[in-house]
């Protein structure tokens, strides 16, 4: 049995991925800030597999230590998914008006914390473990209004690329999951109807292809992985 740790797993893409992994028999460690919604997720997932749910703020060191202890208890991690991220203000302000204290929080959650999670969990990564850092096309394209979130994801992409060079025995993926109907997308477009966007479940097969396949470290697009052959 393999084990995965997913941050921000109480809703959206994190929960959708946790459901698939649980159905495939993976042991899970999940985290989220909201205690009630995380407990709900745990109840649902534990029907399929062994789940440890630890509510808390992933930007704090003591919470990450708790995740690491759970990882030791499970015998190590085969897939580490840095999924939790923070959009910033809704609607998103232009950069010239961007509140800098919020920008710091965006970078803390989206750049520094994923690295901190990897640092804390490094001793629990099993041979050939994979790390998925969930990024966004806003980290590559320059969309107006996406200066805070987008530039933080760009930083996460470059951080992932260097980490991959420095750790050839690990598989490190930075993945654009594509547009999804999630709470985050709704916050990004507060006045729009986003029900025409795909559900997060549609991005899961691409992530599973990375987790279970032997692809080399690199940047991937979750939808392209499944739609195009190879």
């Amino acid at each position, binding site marked *: *049995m393999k084990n995965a740790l997913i941050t921000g797993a109480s809703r959206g893409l994190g929960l959708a991925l946790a459901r698939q992994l649980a159905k495939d028999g993976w042991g899970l460690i999940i985290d989220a800030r909201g205690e009630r919604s995380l407990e709900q997720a745990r109840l649902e997932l534990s029907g399929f597999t062994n789940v440890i749910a630890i509510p808390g703020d992933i930007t704090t060191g003591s919470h990450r230590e708790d995740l*690491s*202890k759970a*990882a*030791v*208890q*499970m*015998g*190590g991690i085969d897939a580490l998914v840095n999924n939790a991220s923070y959009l910033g203000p809704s609607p998103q302000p232009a950069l010239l008006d961007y509140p800098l204290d919020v920008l710091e929080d965006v970078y803390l959650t989206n750049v520094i914390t994923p690295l901190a999670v990897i*640092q804390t969990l*490094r*001793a*629990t*990564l*099993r*041979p*050939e*473990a994979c790390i998925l850092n969930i990024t966004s096309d806003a980290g590559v394209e320059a969309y107006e209004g996406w200066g805070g979130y987008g530039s933080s994801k760009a930083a996460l992409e470059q951080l992932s690329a260097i980490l991959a060079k420095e*750790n*050839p*025995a*690990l598989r490190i993926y930075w993945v654009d999951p594509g547009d999804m109907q999630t709470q985050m997308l709704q916050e990004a477009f507060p006045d729009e109807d986003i029900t025409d966007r795909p559900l997060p479940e549609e991005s899961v097969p691409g992530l599973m292809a990375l987790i279970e396949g032997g692809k080399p470290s690199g940047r991937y697009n979750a939808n392209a992985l499944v739609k195009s052959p190879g």
Partner: protein
Amino acid sequence: MTLLVTSDFEFSLPAELEASEPPEARGLRRDQVRLMISNYSNDQIRHARFHDLPEFLNEGDVIVINTSRTRNSALMALRADGTPLELHLSTHQTADYWTVELRSIQPDGKSKHFEDACEGDVLSLPGEGKAVLKGPYISDCDPDLKQPSQTLWLAELNFPIRLDDYLSRFGFPIRYNYVKERWPLSYYQTVYATESGSAEMPSAGRPFTHELLSRLESKGIQVAPLILHTGVSNLETHEPPYKEFYQVSSLTAQMVNGARSSGRRVIAVGTTVVRTLETVAEVDGKVHAGEGWTCKVITAQYKLRTVNALLTGMHEPQATHLAILQSLAGLDHIKLAYSEALHHGYLWHEFGDLHLIMP
């Protein structure tokens, strides 16, 4: 028998000569690592690749290999106070009793011997396994010297499922700090490994490939298997040795005796093979089949009775294994060979280069 192994041979090993990853990660096949051939009768030293090995051997020579399989012998463990540790299983003693080493994990991912363990400590292991420390291990190799080990504990282990299933599911290979990352067990297995039981890979055999073995065979070079299950290797200098389980078949004994009586070479692949053959040797060097636990210690002064050649990795300064090399080839020859190896940038440790020491 002298118990404390010392060797009068010191050198400093530059960090860049420590093989920090498997040769495959350096773009090499297993058998493309380097091979230094040194003849102790005339101090000749030659340099080649491991796949050139058949060129240096003759028809009728016997290569003796250790076919023990490596286990996933490292487990994550939590102390009762929540300290995360790594538990290394060294040797399965009897029933649920093992000798183990505890290591703490540094923030930089490196591990070091954990000093603060106490008798009675209970460690929780993955998948509801449990370890209880019973006390420092006292080797029974010398009944007169009841010296508790500074490294090894005797522990009672409980696993909820069969040992092999448990370790393949929750364990991972033992790794020391010079290897930067965790590699899967397949990287720690010789191609000819059969019976599971070693804590650490008998690494001198790692560069053999099936292709190379068949080239040796077609040249009339015989390969004789035996088993010695290795324990953990990183004992403190001057620690008493501990016992390891071995098995030698009568066919292997016959092959070794045949080569010896007709003046051909007996080449031990690794120091574990030397330890085993010397265990089953009579005074005149004739070996017999056998199995059991060996306490055999080979010091630099020991007179080897069974082998006259050794294929081995590069050993660390002050490693007790160096004494085995000295007993075979003499201190001066080993000094000469090691200065060549240092000069030519040979790589040390289990993923490194090889040294064939012959008459």
